[in-house]
């Protein structure tokens, strides 16, 4: 058939205001203009207000003397240090309470999550009740109860609860023995490092041999033995260069030892109990996501129940568990900012004090937001890296 023998309807050019691309550009220009105008208006107002209040802008205040004390400091700090140092102390306190809580929440969450799936009716019900109660009460309320009711109800130092040799719990906090490192202890640390390297090499060798010959090697047991025996042996041979300074009970106060402040204890208890209830549900969903067929296939290959769990189920469950787990860790870290309500000197609390003292609201908020954003971005970068590593490799 000859071309163009059928008269094609002639394409009418679209009017430019009906062209989707032109419209898109126009819409974006309008939105951008509105956002910029709004921002300019807000900035102008802010500058006018700051001028009226007589606040000078800039980050110069960071290098002036802070002049306030912080109750828990992991690095040297007193009121003669600068504001910048105070921020750093607060940040370290945030890291400290978050890390401790994450470890406890993970252990507790896994226990509760597995208990929820237990074939033991009572255990499953108790776990379910724990989850349903804890998850549905605001964290702030729980923190306040831990601090004011539970820890606030503890006895005075002279009637301390004795938890063990040199472990005292009272209204001033938890007192534990302080380790004192004497010269020669560094050999034990070196031994620990050597043991870690040795175990890594051993695991690599065992894996390679297993893949080549199929002969299994008890990596876990041997590795644990190396990890424990080598440092302990070194410690004993170098003459036990570690002593403990025990806290002593006085009438009104406890002297010596290490103290964990009640604010810190309340934060750890509240954060980990609350987050554990979420982790438990994640763990349950992860284990349930592995289909029954996987168990049956493993059994028909002759694997035992333990091997099935370790080699088949947990690796697949972890793929489902890790991403939401990481975002729970992130939530926990952000939730540690609630420490301001019970006086735990975390980053947000210190920032609030600095804002009150200096009136540099804009700068303080900018620093606070930047710090939390950086934390979030770091954690989500880790999550993406892990997801890529663990993602299903389909062949």
């Amino acid at each position: 058939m000859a071309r163009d023998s059928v008269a094609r309807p002639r394409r009418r050019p679209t009017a430019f205001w009906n062209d989707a691309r032109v419209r898109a550009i126009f819409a974006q220009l309008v939105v951008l203009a509105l956002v910029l105008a709004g921002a300019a208006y807000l900035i102008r107002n802010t500058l006018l207000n700051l001028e009226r209040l007589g606040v000078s802008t800039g980050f110069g205040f960071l290098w002036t003397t802070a002049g306030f004390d912080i109750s828990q400091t992991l690095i040297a700090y007193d009121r003669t240090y600068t504001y910048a140092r105070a921020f750093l102390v607060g940040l370290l306190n945030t890291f400290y309470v978050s890390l401790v809580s994450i470890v406890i929440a993970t252990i507790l969450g896994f226990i509760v999550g597995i208990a929820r799936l237990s074939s033991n009716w009572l255990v499953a019900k108790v776990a379910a009740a724990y989850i349903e109660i804890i998850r549905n009460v605001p964290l702030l309320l729980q923190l306040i109860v831990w601090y004011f009711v539970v820890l606030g109800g503890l006895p005075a130092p002279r009637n301390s609860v004795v938890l063990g040799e040199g472990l005292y719990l009272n209204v001033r906090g938890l007192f534990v023995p302080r380790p004192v490192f004497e010269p020669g202890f560094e050999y034990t640390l070196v031994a620990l490092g050597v043991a870690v390297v040795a175990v890594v090499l051993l695991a690599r060798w065992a894996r390679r041999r297993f893949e080549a010959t199929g002969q299994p090697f008890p990596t876990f047991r041997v590795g644990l033995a190396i990890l424990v025996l080598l440092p302990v042996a070194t410690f004993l041979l170098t003459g036990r260069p570690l002593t403990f300074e025990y806290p002593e009970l006085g009438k009104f106060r406890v002297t010596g030892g290490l103290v964990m402040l009640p604010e810190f204890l309340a934060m750890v208890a509240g954060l980990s109990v609350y987050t554990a209830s979420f982790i438990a549900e994640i763990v349950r969903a992860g284990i349930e996501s592995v289909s029954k067929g996987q168990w049956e296939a493993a059994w028909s290959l002759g694997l035992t129940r333990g091997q099935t769990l370790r080699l088949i189920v947990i690796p697949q469950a972890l793929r489902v568990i890790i991403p939401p787990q990481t975002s729970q860790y992130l939530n926990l870290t952000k939730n540690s900012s609630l420490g301001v309500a019970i006086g735990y000197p975390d980053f947000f609390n210190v920032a609030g004090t600095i804002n009150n003292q200096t009136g540099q609201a804009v700068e303080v908020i900018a620093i606070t937001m930047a710090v939390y954003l950086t934390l979030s971005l770091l954690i989500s970068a880790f999550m993406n890296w892990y997801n890529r590593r663990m993602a299903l490799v389909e062949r």
Partner: protein
Amino acid sequence: MAVPSQHPAAEVRPPVSERIGPLAWLKHNLFSTWYNSLLTLLVLWLLWATLVPFFEWAVLNASLAGSSKADCPSDGACWALIRIRFHQYLFGLYPVEERWRVLLAFAILVVAMVPLFLPRMPRRISYAIGLILVYPPVAYGLFAGGWFGLEPVETANWGGLFLTLVIAGVGITTSLPLGILLALGRRSSMPVIRSLSVVFIELVRGVPLVTILFMASVMLPLFLPPGVSIDKLLRALVGVSLFSSAYMAEVVRGGLQAIPKGQYEAAQALGLSYWQMMRLVILPQALRLVIPGIVNTFIGLFKDTSLVTIIGLYDLLGMAKLITTDPAWLGRAAESYLFAAFGFWIFCFGMSRYSQYVERKLATGRERD
């Protein structure tokens, strides 16, 4: 449950007497193996050690009668505190003789919401949108007063569960539309709109709510022209709404991503415009998919309203805390907080049950197992 509890190869069915009846149930569910028996005993002991003292404190030794701390036993709960201050847990410092206005506003809401739950209601969505537009001014008029001869009540006196519900309600009704817009923006093909949405969502989700509330209470007054002041409650509302709309956006985005491309193409082939396509084809399906996620965001929002305590508002938690500082009831903090916790729990647990119900209802249509 997906995890089989027993090795199937070992399965030999025992006689009937060992399979049914309460003793068989006990053996099977509590004492099936030696470690299960041990676990059962351990849990029973734990429950005994914690629940019995709690029960003694909260019920057996507790007193509901009496009018002051002196009437209460030292080893039991003092529920008289709750009885006497009950109205403050509900209304905060709202003037006693004006409280009918709050109740009236909630009654109007309940009555107005009835048609939404009728099975064959025509134009349900339009009705809901109309309600969202009309109700807030009416409620605000009743709460704040100052017109039609109603006594004005400052927002600083709003409190208790009433304030919690106001903040949660405003947060929920503003975060859903804002969240949908942000989600559409994030999925948009226009780079400017997409990047603005992404920046907003990630910025807000990356920081804790307290910093947002703090920013709202410190920065908002700075943002306004000199001389204009802004109500403390309004600042908190702005903060809460912005915060939850970012989380809502991510939930809605999940739903949008789950809609197959063919749906978009089919809608475009029919000649629908972008907004017609979203309104008539995509969003109804996407939102239905993520109802559980939306309800979970609401639960989170409801719990998060308690954070306004930190910026000095007296919601249910703030009121409970304020009451513990009253010298007349000093040392009775546990009762006050327990009651507030119960209040929060009822609402959150109810919502989570609803979300599970919807999830099951949705699952029946799609899965067959």
